[in-house]
């Protein structure tokens, strides 16, 4: 197909458009376009397979589990779930975990909001050093704090209470909350603050009525992160509690009895610890991408 040289700029543009369209159609037709989906599918399979296995086992009776490998439950049973929801030690584990996680979320967000505002809007003596010091707490291995925490909370009489775990988790959750919130707050133009103050808003009123609604999604994402890190932490939570506020994760260690490990109940309990996470991530799914960049994209 021979083509004459284009003569006018319009013609050049038209031809480029035709060419572009043809190229795009070609690109779509190539079966290689399926490959990304296939690779992603393989990865998702890798993610879901262990979880599926856990679910599979949680619906089998222990005799079936130990009797031989089956890819899906032959005799579908809810006995392990019934056991968890009717035994106080088991369901209280979930209640305890959720209690200290929520306490920690409330405490962390309440003190982190003003602090993050200060870091995002003002220069003050030692601000950079303070921020770095906060981040160092994020880096502290919980194992380091194990013994002093145990002694400290024992001395002040908070051992084996929900608030002890909530306060201990503040160690890494407050710095994290400030880090994320600071990013979100810095993306709100400073003119908003100035206009509000000229309009006669006092600082607390401005902060609660105007500023907080503006960074709603940031707060939502921060709460998600606070939930996540408090929910998954076990070392501190199990050290600071014995029976009164025992988290579900350490109740699970009691499934090994003299007669061997109760695999079915262990699997069911494990699966139930995933459920709150799914609920929380569902609520923030639209903002989570921004949150993972710590508000800095």
């Amino acid at each position: 197909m021979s083509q004459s040289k284009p003569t006018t700029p319009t013609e050049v543009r038209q031809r480029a458009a035709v060419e572009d369209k043809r190229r795009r159609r070609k690109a779509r037709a190539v079966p290689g376009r399926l490959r990304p989906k296939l690779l992603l599918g393989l990865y998702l399979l890798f993610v879901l397979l262990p979880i599926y296995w856990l679910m599979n086992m949680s619906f089998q009776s222990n005799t079936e589990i130990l009797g031989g490998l089956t890819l899906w439950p032959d005799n579908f049973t809810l006995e392990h779930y019934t056991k968890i929801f009717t035994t106080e030690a088991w369901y209280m584990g979930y209640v305890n975990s959720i209690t200290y996680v929520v306490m920690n979320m409330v405490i962390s967000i309440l003190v982190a909001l003003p602090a993050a505002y200060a870091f995002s809007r003002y220069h003050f003596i030692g601000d950079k050093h303070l921020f770095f010091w906060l981040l160092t707490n994020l880096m502290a291995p919980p194992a380091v704090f194990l013994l002093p925490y145990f002694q400290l909370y024992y001395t002040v009489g908070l051992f084996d209470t929900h608030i002890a775990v909530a306060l201990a988790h503040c160690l890494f959750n407050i710095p994290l909350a400030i880090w994320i919130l600071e990013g979100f707050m810095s993306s709100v133009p400073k003119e908003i603050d100035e206009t509000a103050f000229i309009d006669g808003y006092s600082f607390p009123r401005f902060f609660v009525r105007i500023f907080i609604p503006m960074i709603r999604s940031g707060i939502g994402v921060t709460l998600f992160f606070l939930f996540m890190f408090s929910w998954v932490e076990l070392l501190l939570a199990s050290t600071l509690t014995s029976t009164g506020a025992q988290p579900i994760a350490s109740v699970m260690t009691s499934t090994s009895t003299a007669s061997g490990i109760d695999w079915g109940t262990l699997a069911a309990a494990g699966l139930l610890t995933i459920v709150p996470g799914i609920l929380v991530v569902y609520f923030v799914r639209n903002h989570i991408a921004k949150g993972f960049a710590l508000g800095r994209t």
Partner: protein
Amino acid sequence: MNKVYDNKAWLLILPMLALVAFSAIIPLMTVVNYSVQDVFDANTRFFTGTEWFVQMLNDPALQSALLRQFAFSLTVLCIEVPLGIGIALLMPKKGWQASAVLILVTLPLLIPWNVVGSIWQIFTRGDIGLMGWGLRELGYEYNITRSAVDAWGTIIIMDVWHWTPLIALLCYSGLRSIPEAYYQAARIDRASRWAVFRFIQLPKLTNVLVIGVLLRFMHSFMIYAEPFVLTGGGPGSSTTFLSQSLTTMAIGQQDLGPSAAFSLIYFLIILLVSWVFYTAIMNMQKDKEGGA
């Protein structure tokens, strides 16, 4: 943003400072206190100076735990960072599929760490686990309680399963912030897929990748619950990492002085590496502000 110089901002920080001080400074000072003393009971104690530190630094068990720890952290970083970038590039950007994939990818991050250990313990058992059983059927003598290689491999696969989502989500959020115009310009230039990645996507990802590498380094260096549940540190001590050695020493043997000294050394190593990263982030942001 132009920040105002105002020391009244300290008032906004005070509540946070009080709380973090309670849960960070007091415990940390307790550790420092123990690390320079030999405590027999509540009333008998001797000042030992740097003795515990010297002893800990020369302890062969801890030296090997430290080496194992570095080897582990480097291995998982080398696998997770490229894999995470790759997955972020593959994730759909719009519609219900984007939400669904996002939730599925996030899933491993929301599971309590010891449950992650339990999941993989079940999954890799030779008699009742799909992976252990499958490998045996394929003719491989897979046994994590006997073979150190199997134990290491399993822990690394478990960590990749658990933490690659973090890198993937960080990169995904970085990719979403690239304006469509950049891609259009690349199409006009007929840039190859590789050129688009190398000159458009990767530069935009540096910022989130530094954060990702920093978080991954820190968390992999503090790893405790997952290997503890999966292998209990064995076979022998081939998968005993620093946190586990420390907990055994502090809680199991009640060796206050040495374990406190060990804690501080441990903390300082993480701090040193993280400080280098932090300075890198700060310099990068300075460059960005200077350029804009």
